[in-house]
């Protein structure tokens, strides 16, 4: 049995680390495609990247059911760490989760397994947090939408490779939909439901 002392630590300064992490996430969401850094340092369970851990410590609590993919739930480390630091319930039913943590994005389940919200309450949707291999290297993606002045170029190792094709359901679903935060190490990029892929580069 893991004791509390064996769990990786949370934020050293809960208040200010949560604030600075939130501002990075807010800036990411307000400027889709832009790479934001998370400065706050926190201990992380093995399956979790630093950015993911900081987001969890900043936004999760007992009001946010969390769904973990197979990679995140390979051992009970992530669930224990989440429960201890955030009190967030880890649930098996992804369709009622507030956040879903995806450690192996290639195996991302079909998006309709998550919550899209309703037309009356489109905010009652799942936010996907996807850990990927790079947010600086990879094919270029040209993005457009609210928060973007003209177009934005994102160079990233997007996984699953058809993520943007899958996210195209956001067009028809709107205002319902899925918001995504891509994480690599301490870097994050947000793809809210209003962001559209206009072109793929080399």
């Amino acid at each position: 049995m893991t004791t509390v002392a064996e769990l990786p630590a949370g934020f050293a300064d809960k208040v200010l680390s949560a604030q600075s992490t939130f501002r990075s996430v807010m800036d990411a969401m307000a400027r889709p495609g832009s790479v934001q850094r998370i400065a706050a340092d926190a201990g992380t369970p093995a399956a979790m990247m630093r950015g993911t851990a900081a987001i969890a410590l900043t936004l999760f609590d007992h009001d946010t059911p969390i769904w973990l993919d197979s990679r995140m739930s390979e051992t009970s480390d992530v669930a224990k760490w989440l429960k201890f630091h955030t009190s967030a319930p880890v649930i098996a039913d992804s369709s009622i989760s507030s956040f879903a943590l995806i450690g192996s994005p290639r195996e991302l389940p079909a998006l309709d397994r998550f919550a899209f919200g309703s037309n009356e309450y489109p905010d009652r949707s799942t936010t996907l947090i996807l850990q990927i291999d790079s947010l600086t290297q990879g094919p270029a993606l040209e993005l457009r939408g609210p928060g973007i002045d003209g177009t934005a170029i994102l160079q990233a190792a997007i996984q699953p490779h058809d993520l943007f094709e899958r996210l195209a359901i956001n067009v028809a679903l709107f205002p319902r939909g899925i918001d995504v935060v891509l994480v690599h190490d301490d870097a994050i990029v947000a793809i809210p439901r209003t962001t559209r892929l206009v072109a793929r580069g080399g």
Partner: protein
Amino acid sequence: MNAPTYNFAYLDEQTKRMIRRAILKAIAIPGYQVPFASREMPMPYGWGTGGVQVTAAILGPEDVLKVIDQGSDDTTNAISIRKFFGKTAGVATTTATADATVIQTRHRIPEAALHGGQVLVYQVPIPEPLRFLEPRETETRRMHALGEYGLMHVKLYEDIARFGHIATSYAYPVKVNARYVMDPSPTPKFDNPKMDNCAALQLFGAGREKRIYAIPPHTSVVSLDFEDHPFTRYRFDAPCALCGAGDSYLDEIVTDDKGGRMFVCSDTDYCESRQSAGHRGSESAAPHKERAHG
């Protein structure tokens, strides 16, 4: 006795988390009013509790805060809110629009164009643009869900039939990102065009009505109108009596009881900056006086 102790920026961390989640959803769904469990704040509902909660949830020690009410840093409510954050968060405050990273406002958008490093936080009394046409939340929520805004157009059209003009001069409804009809808060319609394609993030907090909504940077914001009755801005046709500005929204000052009036910029920082740069109006004091505060 239970002596009170307060957290950084007053709100407890659980409350900040809840508000922060609401802000993220608001940005992801531009113009949609996200319900949130607004807390009881140590200032009255209707006096900026929504804006204060949004500001408290985003503010960090590195921020520079500006608070305006009616465009002015010196109105009593602006002073009161600025002092509140000075006391509870110890953040730097400023009256200079360009220097601020977070600007909380009631009823105005600054005249100077905002930049990408800024967040504009609006205090909102009634976030629902359809509320005066349909008082029931259950009904207005359905209309937003369906994007069914005929009622609003009927209202605007009735104005034209009755007065020859759209008789809404402030809190003039807009459509955000071609989907949600949104209340811009009771800003004069003069300010509406500033919301469109704005470089800064705009966040709206309604405390009593428990709603947060947002306009991401560079998002389309269109004032509702008709082809034959296009939206027009209004400002009193005169230069500012202090700085001579011909492009700013003006306060009307009653100078005597014989019909005397003068018109001066409502945005005090804009006016003072222009005066510092040597601009003069018909009533300006010369030489320009130092600012009374820092």
